[in-house]
C-alpha cells in the first residue's frame, strides 16, 4: 500500500510537467481494496479493472517500469501506448484486462470465469468496479449469469460514493449495495474498504469459495478517494462534496491505519518504515528515468495489432 501511495504521489507531483500525456485516475485513499484482495489471489488468478487501474495493477504485481512507460506514451509501455493509464495490463501476473467504460470489464471478467470453469482449471477471477457500475444494466446481467452458472468470480464493488462529481444519493435510492448481489441469489458481503485486513479476510473467503466451486461473491467495500475523479489534486473545493467530509475520511487512511496497527504489534518501527520508503523512492525514480529515456512509438506501430494473425 505504501508503495502504491508513493508511486501515485510521484505521478501526481510530476503530472503538471505534461510529460505523462494520459488521463490519470488516482487510487489514493483506495489502496486497501486492491491490496487486500490481490493478497488473497494467486498470480494465475485474474484481475479485471475499470478505469482506475493504477492500484490494482500494482497490487497484482504489474511491472512498474512498463506502467510508467505506458503513462509516458512510450513504445515499451505495458500496452504499447495504445491504452494509456486506463488500460494497464500485465498478463504475466494475471492483470488481465481493463475498461474505460464503467461496468465494461464485468462481462469480460465473467467470460474469463466461464473459460476457467470450462477448461477445468481452479483459476479465480476478481473484477473491480465502482459503485456506479451497479447503475449500468450489464452488471445485473453478469451477476445473474455468474450466479446461474456458479462461476468462480468475485464482483468487487468499490463504493467511493461519487461517480465523477455526482453523489450516490442523486443516482440511486437509499439501499444497501450488497442487495445487488443478494437479488441475484449470490453471497454478498460488505467490508470496510479502508482496512486492508478486513478486505483480505473477505477476499480470502470469497476466493476459497470460488476455487472450490461454491460460486461467486459480491463484495461491497466502502472507500473514499482522497483526490479528484481524474487528474492531480483534490477537487472538493468545487463544491460537489464537503472538504470536511474528505478530511474525516482521511482519518481512515488505509496506509496509515495499517501502519499504526503493525507498529502497535511491533512488526515495524519508524526507522524501518523510513528505510522501506527510501527503497521504494529509489525504485520509483529509476522507473521514471527508464520511462523518460524510452523510445516513442513509430508510425508503423500505429498499424500493428488491429487484427490478430
Amino acid at each position, binding site marked *: 500500500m505504501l508503495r502504491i501511495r508513493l508511486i501515485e504521489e510521484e505521478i501526481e507531483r510530476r503530472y503538471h510537467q505534461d510529460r505523462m500525456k494520459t488521463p490519470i485516475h488516482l487510487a489514493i485513499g483506495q489502496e486497501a481494496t486492491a491490496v487486500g484482495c490481490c493478497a488473497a489471489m494467486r498470480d494465475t488468478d485474474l484481475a479485471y479493472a475499470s478505469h482506475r487501474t493504477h492500484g490494482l495493477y500494482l497490487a497484482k504485481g504489474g511491472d512498474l517500469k512498463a506502467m510508467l512507460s505506458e503513462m509516458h506514451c512510450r513504445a515499451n509501455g505495458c500496452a504499447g501506448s495504445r491504452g494509456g493509464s486506463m488500460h494497464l495490463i500485465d498478463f504475466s501476473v494475471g492483470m488481465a*484486462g481493463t475498461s474505460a467504460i464503467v461496468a465494461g470489464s464485468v462481462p469480460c471478467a465473467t467470460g474469463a470465469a466461464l473459460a476457467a470453469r470450462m477448461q477445468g482449471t481452479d483459476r479465480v477471477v476478481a473484477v473491480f468496479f465502482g459503485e456506479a457500475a451497479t447503475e449500468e444494466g450489464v452488471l445485473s446481467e453478469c451477476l445473474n449469469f455468474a450466479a446461474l452458472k456458479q462461476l468462480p468470480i468475485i464482483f468487487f464493488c468499490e463504493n467511493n460514493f461519487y461517480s465523477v462529481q455526482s453523489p450516490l444519493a442523486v443516482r440511486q435510492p437509499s439501499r444497501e449495495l450488497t442487495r445487488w448481489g443478494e437479488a441475484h441469489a449470490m453471497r454478498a458481503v460488505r467490508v470496510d474498504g479502508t482496512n486492508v485486513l478486513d478486505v483480505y479476510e473477505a477476499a480470502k473467503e470469497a476466493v476459497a469459495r470460488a476455487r472450490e466451486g461454491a460460486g461467486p461473491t459480491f463484495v461491497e467495500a466502502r472507500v473514499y478517494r482522497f483526490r479528484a475523479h481524474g487528474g492531480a489534486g483534490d477537487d472538493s473545493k468545487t463544491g460537489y462534496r464537503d472538504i470536511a467530509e474528505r478530511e474525516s475520511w482521511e482519518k481512515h487512511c488505509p496506509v496509515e491505519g495499517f501502519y499504526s496497527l503493525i507498529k502497535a504489534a511491533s512488526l515495524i518501527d519508524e526507522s524501518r518504515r523510513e528505510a522501506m520508503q527510501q527503497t521504494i523512492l529509489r525504485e520509483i525514480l529509476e522507473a521514471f528515468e527508464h520511462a523518460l529515456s524510452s523510445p516513442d512509438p513509430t508510425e508503423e506501430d500505429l498499424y500493428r495489432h488491429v487484427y490478430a494473425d
Partner: protein
Amino acid sequence: MPWDEGLVNSLVYDAPSPTEGRVLAYPKAINEALDLALGRDARVFVLGQGVDDPSAMFGTSRGLKEKYGGDRVFDTPVAEESMMGVSAGAAMNGMRPVFMHNRPDFILLAFNQLVNHAAKYHYMDNGRSIVPMVVWAAIGRGWGSGPQHSQSIQGLLLGVPGLKIVMPSTPHDAKGLLLSSIADNNPVLVFEHRWLMKKDGIVPEGYYTVALGKGIYRRRGADLTIVGASHAIELAQQAANKVAAERIDCEVIDLRTVKPLDHGIIQESLEKTGRLLVVDTSWMMGGVCAEIGCLAAERWIHLLKGPVRRIGLPDVPSPAGFALEQFYYPNVDRISGVIREMFR
C-alpha cells in the same frame, strides 16, 4: 407465418445437380460446420437465446446439444450485452465461442461489448490477447416483423477496426466461411440471410475452409461489374441472367466478406468492364454500397465509363407491412431495370 413462407418458397433458386456433388440444404451446411468445429476443437462452444430450442436457429444448431452436452451448447439469459462480453472474455482466455442470434437487431443491444471491447482488446493491449469469437445472426425480410426485427446492420459495423464481417451466399460458403470464422483469431460477425435458408447447394463432406477477405466471380462478363454479398448476390445473378438475353454481359462478384473487403477483385473486373453496380441487403447510405462507391471515386475513376450505381435499401427503416415491403426491398426486376439504365 404463411405469407412469409409463401414468399420464401416462391424464390426460384437454380437446383444443384446431384451429379456435381452432395446436395445439402443451407441450414444443414451451417449445422455441419458447427458440428465439425465442436468435434475437432474442445475450445469451441455455442451459445445464444434458444440455441437448443426446438426451432434450433433455423435448424442450424439442431442436435448439437445432444451430441456435445449442455456445457458446450447452451441457451442463455436474455442478456445480449453481457453475453457478448462473456463471449469476448472467454475468447480472450483460450476459448472459441460462437454466439448465435436469430436476428441481427439484438446485436445492437451488445454494441458496447462488441465495439468498445471485443473489437479493441487485441489492439489496446498491444497484441497480447486475441479475441477469437464468432457472432452469428440471420437477416430477415418478408416476415412482417418490421423496423426492429429485420435489419441488416453490416453497414453500422463496417467502420469498426478490429471486426471482420462475413456474408455468405451459398450453402458451400456458409459452411466454409463459418469454419474459417471459427478458426480466425479475431471477432468475426457472420450475417446469414433468412431467404437463403431455403437454398440448396453442393456442399463437400468434411472440414474445409473458405478464405476470409477473398471475393469470387459468380458469373463472368465483359460489360458490367456487379458487386455484393449474401442474398443480394442471388438477386444480382438472377438479374444478370435476365439481361443476358438483351446482350448485356454482366460480371457478378460475390465478396463473401465485406470486411476485409477484396479490393483487388473489384479493380480487376472494372479494368475490363468499366461499369460498376453495387448491391447490398442493407441501407445504401454509409454502408457497403457507399464504401465501394467511394473507393471507385477515389481509386478507379479512370476506369469508369459512367456513374457508379448502387442498389440497397433507401434511407428508411424496415417497414412491417407486406405492401410496403414490396417497395422497400430490391428485387430482380429493379436490379435488371438499373442495369438497363446503365447502358442507355
